[in-house]
């Protein structure tokens, strides 16, 4: 599997309508053209959409960094996430989320994700995430 493979994007991320825009050695950039399905009762885009995209972007970036084979054999999983939610997003706006790997160790992988509005390039949210790489050796 490689970043061009449709299965590289998780079922939940695809369900939301998120697409892979770009990937590199230590980053993944996702985009979502938001619509009314993604909203809170108040009408703006639900925080959960942004949080899910940030988790996904970094999880995918770590997959590329570790290699698909190693990631499939011993899948990393999010264990900690903290996020600051800075600005609202209105449905119809394009969200761009970039996850960037800080470090991949034997046991843990860490990194940051940032969400921006495409319309004005303003930061919508920032987050830090830690993933564990389970020891499958027993």
């Amino acid at each position, binding site marked *: 599997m490689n970043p061009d493979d449709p299965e590289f994007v*998780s079922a939940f991320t695809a369900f939301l309508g998120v697409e892979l825009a770009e990937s590199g050695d230590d980053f993944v950039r996702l985009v979502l053209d938001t619509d009314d399905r993604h909203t809170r009762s108040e009408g703006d885009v639900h925080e959960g959409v942004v949080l899910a995209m940030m988790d996904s972007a970094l999880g995918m970036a770590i997959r590329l960094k570790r290699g698909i084979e190693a990631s499939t054999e011993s899948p990393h999983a999010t264990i900690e996430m903290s996020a*600051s939610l800075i600005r609202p997003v209105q449905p119809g706006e394009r969200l761009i989320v970039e996850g960037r790997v800080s470090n991949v160790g034997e046991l843990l992988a860490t990194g940051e994700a940032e969400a921006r509005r495409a319309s004005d390039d303003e930061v919508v949210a920032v987050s830090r995430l830690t993933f564990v790489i389970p020891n499958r050796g027993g």
Partner: protein
Amino acid sequence: MTQDEDRRSPFLALVGATIEEAREGYARLSLKLEQKHTNPNGVMHGGVVTTLLDEALAIAVGAARGVDAVRAQPHTAIEMNASFLAAAREGDELVVEGTLLKSGRTVFFGEAEARKRGDNKLISKGRVTFVIPKRPA
């Protein structure tokens, strides 16, 4: 209030969660996990549970403030953190409870946890802080 589907946000409805209870400072949601809620490893995507932790507390804040106050000036999440303690899989049912720790005039602090229905296993625990933004002049 129980089973009040009308209070669901469009995104909560899209995810497929149910509001089981909402009262002042407390809300309980549930979600039966389907394949669409998973990540490439076949376990629940972290974004599903962060959505539910956030939403349970947003509803708890709303129930504490009252419908009119929320309509006049909606609250919004500004900070969240979550620990993911165990995996959940397709077929599992999540129960998410949000409880307010403090209701201020401007800031609301809450904590929420997600457990698996049946064995009550703790899946995720989080804290979310909300503010009532100042109205634009």
